[in-house]
C-alpha cells in the first residue's frame, strides 16, 4: 500500500485511529448526560490554548490540553452550581476562547491565521513526531478513564441523584468526565480540527444507538464506527486532497443515516424473532397468537350514550 509508505501518512493514520477510539468513548457519556454540545464548547476554548502555544513557542497540543481542561472544569462548575444564566456564562466562555485564540496567534511571531486554520479543520501533514507522542499519551488517559471507570461513569450519567446515594464521588466523576472530554478535544484537534471535534464525539454514538439496545453494544459500535470513519476519511483525504476533518464528519453522518434507515426493518426482524421464540416455547408453531376475538364482547358497556348529556 502506497499510503503506508510515507512517514507523515503513518503518523496521520495512527493519530486518526486514536481519535476514532477516544472521541466516541468519552462522547457516549456526554450524550447520555444530554451534554452533546459540550465538546463543541471545549473546542472553542481550546483555541486560546493553541494561540498561547504559538505565543510561548511550546507544543500547541499540550497548551490546548491545559487551557481546555481549565475551560471544561469551569463549564462543569457552572453547570453544577450556577443557578441562573448558566447559558450566558457558557457563551462567554465559548466566544472568549475563540476570540482569545485568534488574538494570541496574531500577536505571536511564529503563528498566523493560516496556522490556526489547520487546527480548526485538521490537517494530516501537520502531525509531527512530538505531536504523536502527545496524542498517544493523552489517548491512553482517555481510554483508561472511559473504559476502566465505565460502570461508575454510566451510573453518574444515567442518574446523578441515585449515584450519590450509592456513595459514588459524584462531583469528582463529573469533573473527570469534563476533564477527559477536554483531553479528547486535544487528541482530536490535529486530525478532525477543533470545530469538528464535537461531531466525532456525538455522531458515532447517535448512529450506534439507532440499532443497539444496550449501553455496552452502543459503546462498542460507536468506537467501531469512529475508527472506521476516521481511517476511511484520512485515506480519502490523502488520495483526493480534501480536508480530513470534513471528510470524516460527513462519513460519520452518512453512517448515521444508513443505520437510521436500517433501524426500522431491524426492529421488525427482532420482534418477529422474539415472537417465534415465544411461540416455539409454547409449542404452538410460528406466528404471534392473535388477540382472542371473544374478549371484545366481554367488554361491559359501562357507559350509555345518555351519560354524556348534561343540560
Amino acid at each position, binding site marked *: 500500500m502506497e499510503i503506508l509508505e510515507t512517514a507523515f501518512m503513518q503518523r496521520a493514520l495512527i493519530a486518526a485511529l486514536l481519535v476514532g477510539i477516544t472521541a466516541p468513548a468519552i462522547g457516549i457519556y456526554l450524550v447520555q448526560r444530554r451534554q452533546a454540545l459540550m465538546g463543541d464548547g471545549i473546542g472553542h476554548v481550546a483555541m486560546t490554548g493553541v494561540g498561547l502555544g504559538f505565543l510561548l513557542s511550546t507544543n500547541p497540543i499540550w497548551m490546548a490540553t491545559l487551557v481546555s481542561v481549565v475551560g471544561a472544569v469551569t463549564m462543569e462548575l457552572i453547570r453544577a452550581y450556577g443557578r441562573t444564566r448558566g447559558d450566558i456564562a457558557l457563551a462567554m466562555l465559548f466566544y472568549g476562547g475563540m476570540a482569545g485564540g485568534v488574538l494570541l496567534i496574531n500577536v505571536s511571531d511564529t503563528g498566523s491565521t493560516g496556522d490556526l486554520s489547520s487546527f480548526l479543520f485538521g490537517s494530516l501533514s501537520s502531525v509531527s513526531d512530538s505531536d504523536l507522542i502527545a496524542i498517544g499519551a493523552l489517548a491512553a488517559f482517555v481510554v483508561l478513564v472511559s473504559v476502566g471507570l465505565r460502570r461508575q461513569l454510566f451510573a453518574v450519567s444515567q442518574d446523578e*441523584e441515585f449515584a450519590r446515594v450509592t456513595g459514588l464521588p459524584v462531583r469528582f466523576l463529573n469533573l473527570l468526565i469534563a476533564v477527559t472530554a477536554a483531553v479528547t478535544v486535544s487528541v482530536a484537534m490535529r486530525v478532525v480540527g477543533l470545530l469538528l471535534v464535537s461531531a466525532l464525539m456525538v455522531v458515532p454514538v447517535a448512529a450506534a444507538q439507532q440499532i443497539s*439496545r444496550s449501553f455496552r453494544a452502543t459503546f462498542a459500535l460507536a468506537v467501531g464506527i469512529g475508527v472506521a470513519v476516521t481511517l476511511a476519511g484520512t485515506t480519502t483525504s490523502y488520495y483526493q486532497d480534501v480536508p480530513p476533518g470534513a471528510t470524516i464528519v460527513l462519513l460519520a453522518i452518512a453512517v448515521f443515516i444508513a443505520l437510521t434507515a436500517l433501524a426500522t426493518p431491524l426492529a421488525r426482524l427482532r420482534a418477529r424473532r422474539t415472537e417465534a421464540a415465544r411461540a416455539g416455547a409454547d409449542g404452538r408453531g410460528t406466528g404471534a397468537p392473535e388477540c382472542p376475538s371473544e374478549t371484545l364482547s366481554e367488554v361491559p358497556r359501562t*357507559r350509555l350514550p345518555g351519560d354524556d348529556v348534561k343540560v
Partner: protein
Amino acid sequence: MSEPAIAADGETAIGDAVISMRGARATLGSRPVLRGVDLTVRRGEVVALLGANGSGKSTAVRSVIGQIPLTEGEIELFGTGLRRFRQWSRVGYVPQRTTAASGVPATVREVVSSGRLSRTRLGLLSRADRAAVDRAIALVGLADRAKDSVGALSGGQHQRVLIARALASEPKLLIMDEPMAGVDLASQEILAATLRDQVAAGTTVLLVLHELGAIEPLIDRAVVLRDGCVVHDGPPPKAVGQHALPGHDHVHPHAADEPLRTGLLT
C-alpha cells in the same frame, strides 16, 4: 434525643432510629419548603410520608439522602450524622420516576447493576454481585426482560426497574419517592408483593405516597406534611379518609359527580 447505641457489628439495635431528622428546615430558591420537620423511622418500620403536592414530602426524603442541603436541623442515618455517613450500601433509593429516558440505550440489567456499585470495589462486579443483580431483577418479575432496553418498557415496568436497582445492594433501608405514581394496577400489585417480602425480611421502609393504595396494609405509621410542617404522625388514616386527609387538596381534573367524558352538549 441521645445517640443510638451502635452494636459492634455496626448494626443498630432493634427499635433504634434508622432515620432521625430533627428540626429540619430547607428552602428551594427563596421559598421555605421544610419548616422544622421532625421525623424518626425506627428499624423494621414502614412509614408513609403523605401530603398534598408541594407539602414538602419529596424535599424531606431528598434531604434525607443528602440531595437537598438543610439550612437548619440535623439528619442521622443509622445513628451517624449524614455528613459523615458512608455506608451507602445499606440504603436503597428509588427516585421519583422521570419520564425522560437517558440519551443512550441501556438494558434492564445494566441499569440494575449500577445499584450494586455501592457493594463493589472499583466497580468490578464479582459473581456474587451478578447473582444479586439477577435476584433483584427476578424480585420485580422482569427476569425475562433483563436484556431488553429500558426505553422499550412501560411506565410500570420502568418503575420496577428502578426498584430492582435499589434492591440490588440488598439494603437495610429503602427510601422510595412516589413508587406508585403512574403505575398500572398489575405493576402495583407486583410492587406491593416485592415490598411485603422486603418488610418481612426486616427492611425499614420510608415511602412518599400520594395515595395509600395497594401498599396500605404494609404501612405501620403515616406522617402527614402540610406546608412543610408535620400535622399528623401516627396510624395510617383509613382508606375512606385518605382524600379527607389534612392537607389533601389534590385537584382532580373532573368533579366526582360528572361523567369522565364530556361532549359538546356540556
